[in-house]
């Protein structure tokens, strides 16, 4: 083989390598686009079907009317009862998850030895891994009849309280793990400085670490709230399908997600207004949770840069 031929072969080889590299670059890049495209598809699909819905029902009626009777003969489409149920159950959930989650995070980051931590953390995170149907079952057949009915006799079998409590348990790991990350990110210097001033461990935990991690903690609560609003199966199983505007947590109420599940379970044919209302409610839910997530992620990023 002449020198020229060898050089040419080498050049061909290098060019082949380059082409392969380029090919895979585009392959990997297009895979990355899948998430973004999915987001666009989600938004467009929901908007398009909702648009059909809103040509028949005015947005003002949707947002202000106090009755939701989509599956009855006389139809009203006021989202308030559904929104109310969603907010009430999520609020109860946060009242459970925020204190417990923050306490667990504080315990994990300040008190637990590495060994104990490696046992407790996965256990707490297991709570988020249990299928939500199981929580629904637990709320309906254990929490309500065995525990809540003992204290509150007039409680309906399907009620918002049990739903809220159960969603609360489900989102404890979200609060605990993001808060724990935030507390771990607080520099040791701050703790040492406090100890040097004669602070006790409880002072360091409550008055140094907790305030320093506050933005992470609040972000965890916002993100957990968004997760609570989107929870479906617990609400569908233990909350009942009764869309009435009420503030009594002992009564059955239908959340937005439970309504979606209810319509999907029955047979609302494609093209009917019941079917389209599914998308309107879904879009409304998506917009609220997206706003919450936007704020939450923003707060998380801000805190991540600070240290």
């Amino acid at each position, binding site marked *: 083989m002449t020198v020229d031929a060898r050089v040419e072969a080498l050049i061909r080889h290098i060019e082949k390598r380059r082409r392969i590299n380029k090919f895979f670059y585009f392959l990997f890049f297009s895979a990355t686009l899948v998430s973004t495209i999915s987001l666009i*598809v989600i938004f467009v699909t929901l908007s398009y079907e909702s648009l059909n819905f809103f040509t028949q029902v005015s947005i003002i009626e949707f947002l202000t009317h106090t009755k939701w009777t989509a599956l009855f003969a006389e139809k009203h489409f006021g989202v308030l009862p559904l929104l109310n149920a969603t907010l009430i159950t999520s609020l109860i959930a946060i009242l459970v998850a925020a204190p417990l989650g923050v306490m667990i995070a504080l315990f994990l980051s300040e008190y637990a030895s590495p060994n104990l931590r490696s046992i407790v953390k996965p256990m707490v995170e297991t709570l988020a891994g*249990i299928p939500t149907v199981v929580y629904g*079952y637990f709320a309906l057949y254990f929490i309500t009849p065995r525990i809540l009915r003992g204290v509150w006799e007039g409680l309906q079998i399907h009620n918002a309280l049990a739903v809220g409590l159960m969603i609360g348990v489900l989102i404890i790991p979200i609060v605990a793990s993001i808060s724990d990350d935030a507390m771990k990110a607080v520099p040791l210097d701050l703790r040492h400085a406090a100890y040097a001033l004669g602070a006790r461990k409880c002072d360091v*935990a409550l008055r140094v670490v907790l305030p320093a991690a506050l933005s992470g903690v609040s972000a965890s609560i916002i993100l957990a709230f968004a997760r609570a609003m989107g929870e479906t199966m617990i609400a569908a199983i233990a909350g009942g399908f009764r869309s009435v505007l009420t503030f009594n947590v002992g009564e059955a109420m239908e959340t937005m997600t439970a309504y979606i599940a209810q319509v999907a379970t029955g047979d609302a044919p494609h093209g009917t207004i019941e079917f389209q209302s599914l998308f309107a409610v*879904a879009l409304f839910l998506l917009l609220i949770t997206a706003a919450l997530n936007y704020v939450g992620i923003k707060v998380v990023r801000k805190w991540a840069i600070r240290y």
Partner: protein
Amino acid sequence: MGYPILTEIRRSRVRLKKVLDRLLPVILSIAVFLAVAILASLLLTVIISGGHRLSWNLITNYPSANPNEAGMRSAILGSIYTVGLSTLICIPISMATAIYLVEYSRGGKLSSILSYNISNLAGVPSIIFGVVGLGFLAYWLGMGRTIITGAFTLAILTLPLVTVTSVEALKAIPDDLRHGAYALGATTFQVVRYVVLPRALPMMLTGGILGISRALGEAAPILVVSGLIFIREDPTSLFSKFTVIPLQLYNWISRPQQAFIELSSAGIIILLLVLLILNGIVIGLRYFLIKRAGQL
């Protein structure tokens, strides 16, 4: 000192603080105990209620109106088909996404937008995926309320989770290795193929398993996609109607008869066992990897 009353106040404050200092870890561990207790009581309730209903019938029989014969064969097969297919779709996409984000475009503006969208996707409530699966895949694209629609829905649902784990797996590979390969004239693809991937693959695998266990437990999106239907036959193709284990459980839970509620408990035990095994594999794999990394 001159003001004994002040000294007294200070002393009592110090005493109070001492008590608080002792009490705080106790109070905090009560929260941990509570979480674990809830988990334990949940498991106990299920086992007490459904333990005696555990039998092979539950796995091999079709659903039935007679609780003594009812099983969840069609649901188990439905779950295997949908979750299996969704994993096949999800894992390559998330691996490729992670490789692009970590190896090809480190910290570019475009990649930060793309990775922001992944966290946005992670924040979308799971039932919304179902609604879009129904509206877009089942009706617009005409795929119908079938296994393949369910699989794509679950694939996109688990995509962020698996991607994030894969990104972490890649970031855990030390840069020295990459630099060494680049210094020898390797292309990015060669670095990925021969240096990074072989080392990151087991860790990426844990992400895939986490995705599977998430997809197995999801009921809401599948409920919307497939409806709550009664199926007494094995799925024959990807375009069969289907149901999954959590939906079969939902069906039994919603029935008034005690026997079906017990049956649902037994089904829950089986589902939780499967999830336990999957998570056990993840924990074991991670432990093994950490140990191996320590030896390197």
